[in-house]
């Protein structure tokens, strides 16, 4: 269904496909990395990701599924006299049915969430919650002028099981890409690098509801997952699958975890680094070495009801083997930090720095890895020349001395010199839609309101 809706919008654009693979693979990627939205759909169609009927770009609105016509014409619709009670779906007169919308606001292009760079295999992977996909590109790919870059692979379709895919990370040694679903999927999925199209994951791990960030430690052979509402970091064996339990959980009032998002399990420095938005729900979290409680009414004695509160956003650092309700070793927090909805983080072990995708103010902030307290970042990338708009993902390429940013507010991933600061233009731009294509700015919305004064539709994200 989603494929259909997006395809219909795209079909109006009517762009022309370019040939792929390129005739001369030795051409530099900057010249090769061209595609149109139409060609992207062609790839998806070939791979069985798109079910658009005739494959000619025309959405066929089928009325065959329309349910029974309303009884009684204008005015009240009532059950026919003598009908059995309760009515069945087949017998009840039901208005509406397969009704085409008068208007649709939808973004047909990938919207980038998270980014992970692999310098060993020269690949970059991005997660796309808009199309429930993972795309990969050559690490050196760049858009020419305003055009989009053709991905090397695109994992997408019903067999993948991906829904609102949030974070992505890679295991260069085993050439595996990991993704975690936020909000509705509650799954961690592992695909081989070469996977493309509508393919089943190599492994699936059930993870707690509202999982967001993911990080693999090669040194520890473990992976860490952050969970927003539960205010916890769950650590699994790297190869965990199915219902395998976590090996430990960091959770509890001493941890300072508050609506955690980005995570980095640093096996070199033996630390676990977490980015927190600071939101604290109405119940105190149970220490992570004890079972979580069930939900329940206020008077059921299920845990300590404290009332919610807002704390300042923070980066908290724990021992890599932390377990249960442990206080952080260090905490970057306060007005001088400039933290504002910190999303993904990346630790640069070579240069002892940590980069933060600061979604709330459209910046990338870099701190010394060992900083603590109310400290200013050592560098901030921000401003109109940077092209940073609603950053969700960040990664550091210490080999090529580059910093990657994925924009949720634009259809781009940006590559900067690692030490870039201020309002500077990126070295390369990797577009997955023609420049200037809008983004709707929401994903998996669960509510809507109508503002009758301004004639506006309000959507919380």
């Amino acid at each position, binding site marked *: *269904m989603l494929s*259909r*809706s997006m395809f219909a919008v795209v079909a109006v654009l009517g762009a022309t496909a370019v040939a792929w693979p390129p005739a001369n693979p030795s051409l530099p990627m900057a010249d090769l990395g061209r595609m149109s939205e139409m060609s992207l759909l062609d790839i998806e169609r070939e791979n069985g990701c798109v079910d658009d009927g005739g494959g000619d770009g025309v959405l066929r609105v*089928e009325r065959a*599924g329309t349910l029974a016509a*309303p009884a009684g014409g*204008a005015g009240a*619709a*009532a*059950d026919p006299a003598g009908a059995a*009670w*309760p009515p*069945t779906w087949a017998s009840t007169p*039901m208005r509406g*049915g*397969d*009704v*085409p919308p*008068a*208007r*649709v*606001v*939808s973004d047909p292009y990938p*919207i980038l969430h998270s980014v992970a760079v692999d310098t060993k295999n020269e690949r970059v992977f991005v997660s796309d919650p808009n199309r429930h996909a993972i795309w990969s590109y050559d690490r050196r790919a760049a858009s020419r002028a305003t055009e989009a870059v053709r991905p090397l692979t695109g994992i997408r*379709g*019903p*067999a993948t099981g991906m829904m609102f895919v949030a974070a992505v990370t890679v295991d260069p040694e085993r050439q595996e890409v990991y993704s975690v679903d936020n909000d*509705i999927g*509650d799954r961690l999925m592992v695909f081989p690098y070469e996977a493309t199209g509508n393919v089943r994951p190599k492994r699936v791990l*059930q993870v*707690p*509801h*509202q999982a967001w960030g993911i990080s693999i430690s090669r040194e520890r052979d473990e992976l860490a997952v952050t969970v*927003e509402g539960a205010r916890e970091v769950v650590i699994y064996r790297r190869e965990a699958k199915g219902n395998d*339990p976590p090996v430990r959980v960091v959770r509890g009032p001493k941890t300072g975890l508050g609506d955690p998002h980005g995570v980095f399990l640093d096996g070199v420095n033996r630390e676990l680094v977490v980015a927190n938005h600071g939101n*604290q729900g*109405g119940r105190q979290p149970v220490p992570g*070495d004890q079972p*979580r*409680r*069930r*939900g329940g*009414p*206020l008077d059921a004695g299920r845990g300590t009801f404290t*009332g*919610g509160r807002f704390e300042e956003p923070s980066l908290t650092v724990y021992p890599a083997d932390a377990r249960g309700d442990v206080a952080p070793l260090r905490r970057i927090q306060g007005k001088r930090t400039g933290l*504002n909805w910190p999303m993904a983080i990346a630790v640069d072990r070579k240069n002892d720095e940590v980069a933060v995708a600061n979604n709330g103010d459209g910046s990338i902030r870099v701190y010394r890895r060992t900083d603590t307290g109310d400290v200013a970042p050592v560098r901030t990338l921000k401003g109109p020349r940077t092209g940073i708009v609603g950053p969700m993902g960040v990664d550091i390429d210490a080999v090529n001395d580059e910093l990657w940013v994925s924009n949720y507010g634009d259809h781009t991933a940006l590559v900067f010199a690692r030490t870039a600061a201020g309002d500077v233009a990126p070295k390369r731009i990797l577009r997955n839609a023609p420049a200037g294509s809008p983004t*709707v*700015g929401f994903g998996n919305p*669960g*509510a*809507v309101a*109508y*503002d009758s*004064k*301004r*004639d*506006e*539709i309000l959507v*919380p994200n």
Partner: protein
Amino acid sequence: MFARLANGNVGPERVIEGQATRLSRTMHGIAYDDRNDEIILPVALSGAILVFRGDAQGEAAPIRVIQGSRTGLIRPHTIAVDTVNGEIIAADPSSRAVLVFKRDATGDAAPIRVISGPKTLLLDIVGVAVDPIRNVIVASSRSRGPTGIMVFDRLADGDVAPRAYIGGPNSRLAHFRQLAIDPGTGNIFLAQQRTRPKRMDAYVAGSVGRPRQEYREPDSSEDSDFGRLTQTGFVAVYGPDDTGDIPPRAIIKGPGIRHAGAGGVALNPRTGEIIAVGGNGISTYLLPEFFQLLKRSRGPETETTPQ
């Protein structure tokens, strides 16, 4: 915030975002107060209700915040505003309660009424709406037990049974969210994401070492709902007096609706439009006939009179 007439791939006209707003990700409720020109949102991750000016934009701070130990808010998911009686109605799946606050409440304010308890059938409450004309509060609640729409007297307080309940296998209600009520007719609109319950979390209540006892390993056919028309969601519409295990009286469902399922629904009775969000899009349907009274003529209870 999008223009009502926006169509295609368009960006929002304005955005409220940033740390100072105290908003979070994963917000599943919103209400607009047209009498006082305010936007009201529940923030599940911080146990709070935020109220913004109607024209708020950028990193605007809320003008009022309801949050604290007296509020009863643990993880509020959904919200409605009663502009006639000056009340905010929030529902919280963790406290398993519908909590009613004065519209201008702020800070650590106690609710003025709470609907909660085993008689209410409320558990995972994901939608709430209020009809100040017919004096009802309607909640949508999911659980492994009663799953559907519960209708309460607007002034209900405590552990009270709903006066109507729409749910059961014939209703096909399973994984739904937001509710809306047409003030003109009292018709009840529900956004359903899919017709199968969400998979159970393995470790919500279990120990670190093993999954919860009642957890069932999903079979391979449950990998995705996409593309299965029988399992995709819909917007369902019921009459104000409906009750029982019944199908909707009107529905938006099918391959042409451009939605796999709807997570949210809002109404514009003036234009006869139903606005649904789901997947990653907003769809607006022009269906003025859905704003005519959907009347029940027979059933287990007495016949009702159209307003």
